[in-house]
């Protein structure tokens, strides 16, 4: 496993989160992302929109915890790119548009992206999203505010969070802190640090009163990276994914990328990315 000594990340503590979504708005503000059209709610509780998208890099999800038909808790979770230590999305990208930086963030570069969407299929958390609505579509996702942290600022969402639910810092330190919290709160926390080992570890560490699986995260992920750091990356993608990729028709897709036809297709898809 690679050293994480200089990598930055988040400790997201669901037991401190109040689901206020200041983080969600701060992310849109910093990244100048447009609002999505929503109606009522897009998921459990107050969730909106329905999913991450090229316009929404982070999303608060709500779960009512019911035992014996009685509500016992209401838990909130911040969904976003986990910034894997060895990201499958990066190794899946055939043109190097996605990059893992030394400071931790996994970033993308519009100029390089050809819109093949392999990263979407490779990511175990279903994070990268496609600009369905654009005539020149790219892949979008949380960058861990790499443009801010390069300039010594905390990520926008972490800065906006008033409750202490998001702690930004060095991953090593955050991991220690997470372990400390778990130890001192055996009744408060579900005893697992999601992101410590999953797919080789991620820069975002999550602790909560309930397992993250309850928010739709995959359980039992391998401790090894899904990327085997091989190049080309396609090898690391599970067979089913390759099949889907082939069905999409990679070449045709690239050729069509700039054509109007795609924008029409995307319009018909709305924002269901």
């Amino acid at each position, binding site marked *: 496993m690679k050293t994480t000594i200089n990598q930055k990340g988040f400790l997201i503590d669901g037991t401190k989160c*109040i689901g206020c979504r200041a983080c969600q708005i701060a992310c849109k503000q910093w990244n100048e992302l447009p609002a999505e059209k929503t109606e009522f709610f897009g998921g459990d509780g107050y969730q909106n*929109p329905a999913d991450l998208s090229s316009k929404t890099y982070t999303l608060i999800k709500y779960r009512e915890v019911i035992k014996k038909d009685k509500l016992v808790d209401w838990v909130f979770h911040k969904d976003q790119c986990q910034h894997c230590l060895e990201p499958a999305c990066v190794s899946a990208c055939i043109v190097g548009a996605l990059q893992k930086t030394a400071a931790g963030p996994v970033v993308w570069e519009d100029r390089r992206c050809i819109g093949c969407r392999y990263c979407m299929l490779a990511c175990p958390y279903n994070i990268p999203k496609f600009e369905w609505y654009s005539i020149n579509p790219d892949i979008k996702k949380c960058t861990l505010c790499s443009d801010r942290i390069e300039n010594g600022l905390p990520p926008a969402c972490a800065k906006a969070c008033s409750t202490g639910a998001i702690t930004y810092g060095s991953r090593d330190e955050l991991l220690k802190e997470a372990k400390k919290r778990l130890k001192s709160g055996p009744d408060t926390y579900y005893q697992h640090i999601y992101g410590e080992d999953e797919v080789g570890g991620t820069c975002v560490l999550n602790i909560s009163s309930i397992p993250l699986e309850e928010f739709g995260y995959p359980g039992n992920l391998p401790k090894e990276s899904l990327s085997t750091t091989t190049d080309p990356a396609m090898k690391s993608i599970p067979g089913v994914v390759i099949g889907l990729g082939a069905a999409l028709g990679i070449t045709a897709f690239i050729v069509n990328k700039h054509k109007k036809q795609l924008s029409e297709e995307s319009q018909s898809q709305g924002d269901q990315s």
Partner: protein
Amino acid sequence: MTNHWIDIQHSDVIIIIGSNAAENHTISMKYVNMAREKGAKLISIDPRFTRSSALSDVYAPMRSGTDIVMIGGIINYALQNNRVHKDYIANSTNGSFLINPGFGFKDGLFTGYNEAKRKYDKKTWGYQLDARGNPKQDKTLKDPNCVYQIMKRHYSRYTPEMVSGITGCPVETFKEIAELYTSTSAPDRVGTIMYAMGTTQHTVGTQNIRSYAMLQLLMGNVGKSGGGINALRGESNVQGSTDMCLLFHILPGYLKTPQPKDVDLAAYIKHYTPKTNDPKSANWWGNYSKYITSLLKAWWGEHAQKDTAGGFAFNYLPKREGWMDHITLFEQMYAGQFEGFLIWGQNPAVGGPNVRKERKALEKLKWLVVADLWETETAAFWKAPDVNPTKINTEVFLLPAASSMEKEGSVTNSGRWAQWRYASIQPGDAGWHGDARPDLWIVDAMFKSLKAEYKKDPGKFGDPILHLNWDYGTGDKVDPHREPDVHKVAREINGYYIKNGKPAGQCISFGKLKDDGSTASGNWLMCGGYVNWSSKEGKRSDTHYVKNEAGEFSNRYARRINEKDEPKVQKLIAAGRTTGLNLNWSWCWPVNRRIIYNRASVDLKGRPFDKDKWVIRWNPNLKGGKGAFEGDVPDGGWAPGTKYPFIMLPEGHARLFAKGLRDGPIPEHYEPVESPFGNENPLSGQAVNPVILQYYKGTKVQRELNPIGKNDKYPIVATTYRLSEHWQAGAMTRNQPWLAELMPDMFAEISRELAEKIGVKNGQKVKVTTARGSVTCYALVTARFRPFDLVDKNGKKIVVHQIGLPWHYGFQGIATGDAANILTSHVGDANTNIPEFKAFLCNVVKA
């Protein structure tokens, strides 16, 4: 707040009741979380499991409108089990005071009730006095007429079973929170109560707050770090606006609005200056004459002389007769009693109670001026979906106002800290929004135009306008390119000495104010916030240093020194002083005291009850061996034991028993005007607060559009609330696409049980109807609401459903929806007439 936001971190037990702090005061949860990290327990009491409840250790459900039962139950638990702080009660409260033996309470009514007048004669509500005219006391708290024993008898009826039957909170849960909270009666433990509009907006709103304050006094929690009684103000500067008198019954600094019987200044001062014969009582309001005279000097300057207009121009002040609250104002408007109206930073067509009636009232106006950032529903009432604009003759003027980011000045937060903020952009700068103007410019221009009219024709009573002391540096003419000087305003609010008719330096504190016309102060409480510069104030490079044509000043609101950077303070903290007072960050009224009533946090020798996080303590070595308090600014510097701690009251002791209220000296539970028990109250024969205003039973015009519903037709309890994602009546957030994305539509939260009963699924639409009107909205079906198991007066078990509705929505902007206040009524609290927004009856069907 008696304390302040940062101080919440020092609590051992925190109750959030009548508030959804996580949702509406998100920053408070930073400090709640800090306290929890140190082992504090959080109790959430709410009809609905909220975002605040999500962080709680114990959640206690409570039907809307039953706070006094819940808290009265905890008080009973404390008194029955001796879980109270007895020394504190004896020395700092009126628990030991003997009450007139004629005082009594029977079947829901205190002695002296006059049914015809719907009013109490309070003759029997007084103290027994000794020969010197001071209240008699029994420090053992055993005399049957002492307040402590009266309370014990009164609340003995509030048993856990009674609490459960009325509030719907299971007996076990109630006992758990009662036990947990009364653990703070130990001198070295402390608890706090965080509350907001869920407490106040009831027909018993004032008594709800009283019940919290009384519990805090019994626990000995007032004056201590981590304690107090903490009103979380719902807007960034609502504390400031209250301090500056944006209420009908007070002038700046909580001086009383004169009434017709206050014929001149002498009569007014006599009316409102409390007296005491007890030398140990500081009786701070004994200084009343100095504060009102200085206010009159600030307002009418040279024209306020000893012999002008009732003395210092006193009779220039408008006088009020009776109620002039929001509901009354709109009732009068509806009845056509006035023709013009100015609305500023308010959107009553969404936020007012009974908006169908209030929107209709706006139609009766000849003209309406709205100053706001957007065209609100109030400005656009004539184009509401259900009205015909051609039938409305009101002329509406919309004045574009600057936002808080676009103007400079002070903002006073809930903790009474007045903090200076700067304009990020000036009128005329690139990016400035159209013709928008800061409020100060608008009011300055408006006044100058008005004065010009009065100059032309002063009419019957032009002097108050023509003589007003008004010069904020923009000349006589309205000039769109000249901004009034906000520092001049701040200097006037602070106050200054007057010599030879001219300002002669800033007053340093309200102790210097006089009633002979030699001082002026726009608000005595703020005196000390904006003073002359001296080397003691800091360095000229500090943020609070101000230099202008009038001289050099210390704008203490702009101080930005964190106590972490103050070595002297760190020494005290190492010796146990509490953290977070930050005495050199901003400025706080009164006299920069961060935790008020702090003299109650020490014993008669000046030793803190709580050694680990004391607020003040007596240090005999200070002042060259004379001794002084150190730590926070004390409630007066007198040696410990020489003055009583509650200096604003003539008896110097906090009032567990308070004669001043209209509806009783101790809180008693009455049902909301619309109650699921119908006309019954399980606790007494008196269903509803007996002294509330009853417009719904008034004249024909008052009764119009204001019917009250009964539980047969409207069996479901409803309440309203706010969301993190929207702000008040919505203009600032429903016009914001990102926030509209999060909360796009009006919805009602309903329990799974009710949803099943009416056959509605999550995301389908429901129609909610009260006696006043209906709203149609989405149903959010949730386990966070549960039906309440109640017990009625006859001991019969009944199941009562409750729903909740956000009140932000209206027909303007991006995120629109029916206004929840279509459902609410023109019924208010007995003492303030604040509307009963928080508990009413409805019916819900699938739409």
